[in-house]
């Protein structure tokens, strides 16, 4: 609840919209190094009540195949009950589940990218799921705000 209050007041004070997106994507730059940002991301995902299901180490696969890349990971997460609700009600969204964040380093800073899940709400009919997708979007903003 405190997070919600802080996030809402911050958004109101900063005079920016809730969904400040880049064409359906949410992007944030953390001034932390990759390991620090990754740790902060995993911590805040948990603090927001989500379960981290897997970290895909894309950079490892690329490097082993002989390609140059800086640190590049995909973090998968979700709340089991919510994932099941979406699967049950809107099975066409299954390929987009669970939620994920791409995190990659850029020098001494770190970039984070996620899909604006509220965009998916246009694809669904169930109002509960629509609301859920909007909340996921707000949670991602809040999670990114913590990583900063």
């Amino acid at each position, binding site marked *: 609840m405190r997070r919600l209050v802080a996030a809402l007041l911050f958004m*109101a004070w900063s005079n920016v919209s809730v969904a400040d997106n*880049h064409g359906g994507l949410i992007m944030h730059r953390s001034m932390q190094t990759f390991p620090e940002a990754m740790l902060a991301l995993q911590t805040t995902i948990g603090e927001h009540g989500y379960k981290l299901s897997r970290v895909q180490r*894309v950079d490892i696969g*690329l490097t082993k195949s002989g390609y140059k890349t800086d640190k590049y990971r995909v973090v998968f997460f979700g709340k089991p009950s919510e994932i099941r609700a979406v699967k049950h009600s809107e099975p066409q969204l*299954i390929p987009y589940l669970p939620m994920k964040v791409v995190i990659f380093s850029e020098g001494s800073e770190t970039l984070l990218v996620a899909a604006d899940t509220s965009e998916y709400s246009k694809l669904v009919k169930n109002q509960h799921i629509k609301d859920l997708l909007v909340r996921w979007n707000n949670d991602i903003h809040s999670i990114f705000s913590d990583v900063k």
Partner: protein
Amino acid sequence: MPFSLRSILKPGLLLLASLLYYSPAVQAAPSGKLLYGMHCASCHGHNGKGGMGVPLALDSFQGSVSDDYLKKTIRFGRPGRVMPGFTHLSDAQIKAIVKHVRSFSSATPLQDSGLLVSGNVKRGKELYAQRCASCHGANGEGGKGTGVTFSRPRDLPIIAPGLNNSGFLSAASDSLIKSTLMNGREGTPMQSFLKQGMTEQDIDDVVSFIRSYETRTATKTPQKNPDEKAVIIMDSPHDLKTTIAQVKSAAVAKNFRIIRTQELEQGLVEKGKENKNEVIVFFCNFETLNKVLAIDPRLGLFLPCRVTIVEKAGKVQVMSINPRYLSALYNNAELDAACDEMYNTYIEIIEEATL
């Protein structure tokens, strides 16, 4: 549903935030630094040193553009070149961002004369082909590599802008283009063409040719095909186990490596309690992965490739994201071909698996 304090407070807080958001007192004093941090820093860097976006702190950049150019660039963006148009920001907010951007450099901003340049378009076309096309593209489409960050190998912090871009043409006045051609931009490959032997008349001709893109081939915002579905779904005539095996076999036949096969709920629920009838096959061709991440590293959001196989009430379906549907999210025209290729690959794999 249980009645809780939270259920009352949450809508109340949303209302409070909305009231604050639309409050004239708040609207009256936008913070450029804060707005920049929210909207611009992810691409341009907190200190304007660049990344996916132009290095705004570069003195030669700041000295060669006017405030009006920056404002219009923020407002209209660069269709198809990653930079979005911030149509939802107020004029006061954009002005505040520009003021903050100006704090990155002590260079004196270009004072735009507003004068229109009148040159020979035909001659300008010839000069453009000789002097400009190698960096800006034969048709003014700009340098390749839009969307690339320093997470990937990269030679320069700046990519030659797309001169035929409708956003660029809206933002850049004739005198701004002329000034850039005459003076160049120190610290970038853009040289002074006066120093390279061109006359002012030559430069006027090139400016007129660039301006003529407005009526010929200016790029527009990539439009999402309204008929494009968000997902690719096909029914399988086989059982779940056979379909999974067929998906893997089809992916391998397309030169992909199977990374892993897992239940969708793996890692989310207690081990052993996953729904066994929802399985994801992850596969990757690292050469292709490297290629698309070099076009736009944000595409990793939908990579590595994955196909989900679901059995429900005895019916097996194979599904994946639709890359064509997603490409419009990125405002990056360079991605379109890659997304088309990915789309065709998904279709071929899923068709093969469901034969």
